[in-house]
């Protein structure tokens, strides 16, 4: 086990930059998730840690030692690929023992380790099968097994669950989390799925366009997104974003929305008077009432029942807002509904830079 430090790392393919100045410090035993839309450079960063891609600028340290020039085999890390990359001509047992054989592990010890890993992952009865005879979920387990048989300094995962169906994905997610609790190995996990990121991570690194946007615990990112990108990327159903102008009148703050409506905001919002802003509010923070009339009224346009709760699309003259409610009340389409946007639940961003306005 080891810490991993990424210091001022950049990557270009030819003249095309794909990673800009990434700084990240991962502690020993930490589970860090890199999350971001497809093409933002997550895999590239992970592969640079693994030694599969060259480093254009900066340093990568594993266990305090610079590994920039070290071959993958000398970095002592394990990786689970999105494609699983199982050796098709080898049995499950040989797939799992390949790395041990290369290290000259004595055969009794090897078979002991393999059977321990196999029983942990429920693979005992498949050990003599070839990968092509296994289902997707089983192959995924073999790929995991291949990583855990030796005690590497770190686990790297590149979207390991994205080829599985939703049910299996949920199940494997839990197993990965348990495995990490048990082994405590430093892990970097790449995904584009923000639910996976939220549920697995000790810390999330949100990336976009080759740059780190925010690093923090899942709840940090959820409750205090540092910019518009993070606010809209994290959370499902997605956050509502409204355009407006910030008005500062002494201690009073309010926002004039495009629709001329006034939206009170908290006094601690920094911003300037007249600053163009974007206001975010998460669907579950939108308060609705169908019985009582209120100052803000809209119509129920669409109802998406999710079992756990319901997503309501509330149409007003100017826009559609999403609200997430837990009550199982009946919301007939077209009926009037009162809603409010509590000042303490607003996320306010500068409209031009997209950065959060200090509060």
């Amino acid at each position, binding site marked *: 086990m080891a810490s991993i430090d990424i210091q001022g790392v950049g990557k270009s393919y030819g003249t095309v930059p794909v990673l800009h100045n990434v700084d990240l410090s991962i502690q020993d035993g930490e589970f860090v998730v890199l999350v971001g839309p497809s093409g933002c450079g997550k895999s590239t960063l992970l592969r640079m840690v693994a030694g599969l891609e060259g480093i254009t600028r900066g340093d990568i340290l594993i266990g305090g030692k610079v590994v920039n020039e070290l071959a*993958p085999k000398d970095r002592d890390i394990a990786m689970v690929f999105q*494609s699983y990359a199982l050796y098709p001509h080898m049995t499950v047992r040989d797939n799992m023992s390949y790395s041990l054989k290369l290290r000259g592990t004595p055969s009794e010890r090897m078979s002991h380790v393999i059977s321990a890993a196999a029983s942990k992952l429920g693979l005992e009865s498949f050990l003599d099968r070839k990968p092509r005879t296994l289902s*997707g979920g089983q192959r995924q387990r073999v790929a995991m097994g291949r990583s855990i048989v030796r005690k590497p300094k770190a686990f790297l995962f590149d979207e390991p669950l994205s080829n599985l169906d939703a049910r299996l994905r949920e199940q494997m997610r839990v197993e990965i989390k348990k495995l990490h609790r048990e082994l405590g190995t430093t892990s970097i996990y790449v995904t584009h799925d923000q639910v996976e990121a939220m549920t697995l991570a000790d810390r999330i690194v949100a990336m976009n366009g080759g740059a780190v946007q925010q690093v923090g615990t899942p709840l940090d990112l959820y409750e205090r997104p540092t910019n518009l990108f993070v606010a809209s990327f994290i959370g499902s159903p997605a956050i509502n974003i409204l355009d407006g102008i910030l008005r500062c009148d002494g201690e009073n703050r309010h926002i004039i929305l495009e629709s001329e409506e006034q939206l009170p905001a908290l006094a601690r919002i920094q911003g300037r008077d007249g600053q163009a802003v974007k206001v975010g509010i998460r669907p579950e923070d939108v308060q609705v009432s169908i019985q009582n009339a209120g100052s803000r009224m809209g119509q129920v346009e669409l109802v998406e029942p999710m079992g756990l709760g319901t997503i309501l699309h509330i149409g007003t003259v100017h826009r559609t807002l999403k609200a997430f409610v837990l009550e199982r009340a009946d919301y007939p389409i077209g009926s009037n509904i009162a809603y409010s946007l509590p000042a303490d639940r607003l996320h306010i961003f500068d409209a031009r830079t997209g950065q959060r306005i200090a509060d």
Partner: protein
Amino acid sequence: MTSSARSTPYWFLHYGLLAFYVAFALFPLYWLLKVSITPNDLLYSEGIRLWPSRSSLAHYTFVLAHSDFPLFFKNSLIVSGSTAVTVTLIAALSGYAMSRFDFRGKMWLVGLMLITQMFPLVMLVAPIFKLFSPLGLTNSLTGLVVVYTAFNVPFATFLMQSFFDGIPKDLEEAAMIDGASRFRAFRQIILPLTLPGVAATLGFVFTAAWSELLFALMLVSKADASTFPVGLLSFVSKFSVDFGQMMAAGVLALIPACLFFLLIQRYLVQGLTAGAVKG
């Protein structure tokens, strides 16, 4: 449209055309066989009968027992076998490099390799002879192996490259992370999966070298280093052509090529990478 939906006339035509094609393609081989077992006295008298009224293996016995043919045959085996192995070794390495690495001048290298395939070989006979004779490579099997290897490496490289391209990069990356060097990953993971490609390349180069006539004729003037295509010509004398013996030798020459393909066909048809990724 499903097959059951198609009518009988359709299938009649379908198989009819296939049968015609196969017959057309195999007819020369059939004729080879037919002439080789036709006794000389019947060859001209019976004209173009599909099967002679009397058959004999006399031509075969003569070719095997009283001609230089066994020697030519052995020479051909040595030349074709060595060429096939050498070319495949080189092409496996260079094809892998072409498939996996980006390096300066790659485009130039590919271009040059294509250019070598554009020349009519006849143009090169004289310069190569000039080059080889001081080196003692004329009248030698080694000389032929060198020439054949040089001419077959470019195409074989492209062939191997296309096979390597079909194998996911993830596999060797996984091996390298598991602790293998790149060469070990190539040898233990990638090469076993490319066996169909290796077999195809071996087969292709073997047959090309087996039937090569131009250089075999020009670089070798002594019988002890002649290959069998040159040997076949020895059945043509100034005044007559001994068709029966020539065809018998031809049939015999087909045997190694057939055996060779029988040996490698298992790899040719097998899709080893199935189940490597996703699925």
